[in-house]
């Protein structure tokens, strides 16, 4: 039985989906875009612009939809999905490509020595207790016997020294050292990422440290004049301490003090939050 005739009659009931164009359209289906370079009918555009544009857009849209419906299809819970091809049109990015993270000191050392990362399981078997315990962290194995109930005093050590606190201190020190290194790594990485051309990390770090020293000096009334000097510390330039005269204008002094009070207490001078205070009293 030939059903092609039936199909034809079925089709002819509806309007066609084919559109004739002199120059075929270009498509960028990743953007769902079609580009038509055919010439428009100028007389129609002048006399019946909106209708003509709509008709023209319909034809173009039909062609675009035809192309989209030809794409490979997968059906899912969301509906029928068409797989889009690679984008052809180049659209500029919003931000530059991310820079790769600079390696830490350890990573550089490991690379130079050819040390490769081996994956270790987080839990290790503790033979003494017969249990699985974490390699590090809470209840971990690397506490170096800090939780032991008895520690033998080494022969060379002072017998009256507290070995427990000694171990605790040693661990604290190790942690602090590690943290300092972590901080240094971060600072160095930041300096590498943000450095202007030609500047090295060492000098950038030096400048940053000097800035921090200058900030810390403001903590004392003398701006660090009588502070203990650090090793190799240079004298700060351009730092002046201004002293007000101890006898002089009373009004000016009052104004100054009031200004400070205003800054501390608040602009409106509301020291007490009345609503809160009432609520407190009613309790």
């Amino acid at each position, binding site marked *: 039985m030939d059903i092609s005739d039936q199909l034809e009659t079925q089709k002819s009931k509806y*309007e066609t*989906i084919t559109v004739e164009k002199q120059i075929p359209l270009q498509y960028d289906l990743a953007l769902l875009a079609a580009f038509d370079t055919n010439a428009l009918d100028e007389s129609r555009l002048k006399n019946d612009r909106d209708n003509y544009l*709509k008709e*023209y857009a319909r034809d173009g*849209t039909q062609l675009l939809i035809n192309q989209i419906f030809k794409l490979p299809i997968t059906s899912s819970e969301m509906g029928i999905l068409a797989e889009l091809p690679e984008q052809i049109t180049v*659209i500029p990015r919003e931000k*530059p490509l991310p820079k790769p993270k600079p390696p830490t000191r350890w990573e550089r050392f490991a690379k130079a020595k050819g040390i490769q990362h081996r994956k270790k399981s987080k839990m290790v078997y503790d033979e003494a207790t017969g249990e699985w315990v974490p390699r590090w962290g809470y209840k971990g194995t690397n506490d170096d016997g800090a939780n032991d109930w008895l520690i033998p005093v080494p022969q060379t050590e002072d017998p009256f020294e507290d070995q427990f606190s000694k171990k605790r201190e040693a661990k604290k020190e190790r942690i602090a050292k590690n943290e300092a290194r972590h901080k240094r790594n971060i600072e160095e990485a930041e300096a590498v990422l943000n450095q202007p051309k030609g500047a090295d990390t060492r000098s950038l770090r030096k400048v940053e440290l000097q800035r921090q020293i200058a900030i810390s000096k403001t903590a004392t009334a003398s701006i660090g004049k009588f502070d203990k000097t650090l090793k190799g510390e240079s004298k700060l330039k351009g730092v002046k301490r201004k002293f007000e005269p101890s006898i002089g204008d009373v009004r000016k002094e009052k104004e100054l003090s009031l200004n400070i009070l205003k800054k501390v207490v608040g602009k409106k001078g509301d020291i007490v939050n009345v609503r809160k205070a009432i609520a407190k009293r009613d309790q």
Partner: protein
Amino acid sequence: MLKKIKPKNARSKRALQKREPKIEENVKKAIFIRSSSTNQLVNEALSDLCKLKKPDAISFTKKNNTIHPFDDDTSLNFFCEKNDTSLFVIGSHSKKRPNNLTFIRMFDGQILDMVEVGIENAKPLSEFKTSKCAIGIKPLFLFVGDLFENSLVYKTFKNMLLDFYHGQTVKNINLSGLEHVISVTAIDSSSEQSSDPRAIPGIVYFRVYTIQYKKSGEKTPRVELEEMGPSYNFRIRRFKFANDDVYKLATRIPKINKPKKIKNIDVNEMGDKIGRIHLGKQDLSKLQTRKMKGLKRTTEDYTEVDLEEMEEIPPIKKQKAS
């Protein structure tokens, strides 16, 4: 320049991480902003264009005296950094340049491209009493006219419109989610001479239609359009494009996204996949041909090795049947 913020808690850290440069970028957000003086037409145009861009759009409803993108870009840089946006539409209205819109896109906090257009024959979204498309749906684009191919200004304007409205980059698209089409037609004809002395030749018709699907008797439906609005005729006035170095930097493709070149497999113009296979040199001496007495190896052909092998194997004697 904004001060670099150091996150104090995990939430702000996450928020800052979202703003960092990434290989797969976020959707570009747009700010719709008013200059020092605007009129009703420009305000409506800004709000309508903003509605089309929603949800990745921020509408600034106060007027801003300091925004003159072609002279000074400091306030734009500030807004860009503060809101993490890279697209701007600035509306203004003055005697010199009436009904003015400036489309701006930025890269790395600096202005990349700017195109200024004057609006003619504006019809706002509210004037069309038809059904609108849902928010956040990817539009279809239709660019008509050879100006979009031949003129650099129009080509960039096309690219900018695509940049503004294409939305999220996706691998799959829901076929039932194609609701509207943005049709942009550019023509440079004698009948459309401009009265605007500051405009470059040519006119751009910006139209938005909703799509209705009808039965066609085939798998692909028949398409009918209905104008949804807004509708504008644009005249391009001033423009400023990025220099080549910056543009190159902005269009760099990350290494991961570059498709790996597959050796020896080509696709020709007809779309046929053609593969090349390399075989070693064929040893024709061992080729099995028809056996003939004349081609049999003679004793001279045998090497010493062959002869040794033959000696090792004792000849099998045929036993006589007793």
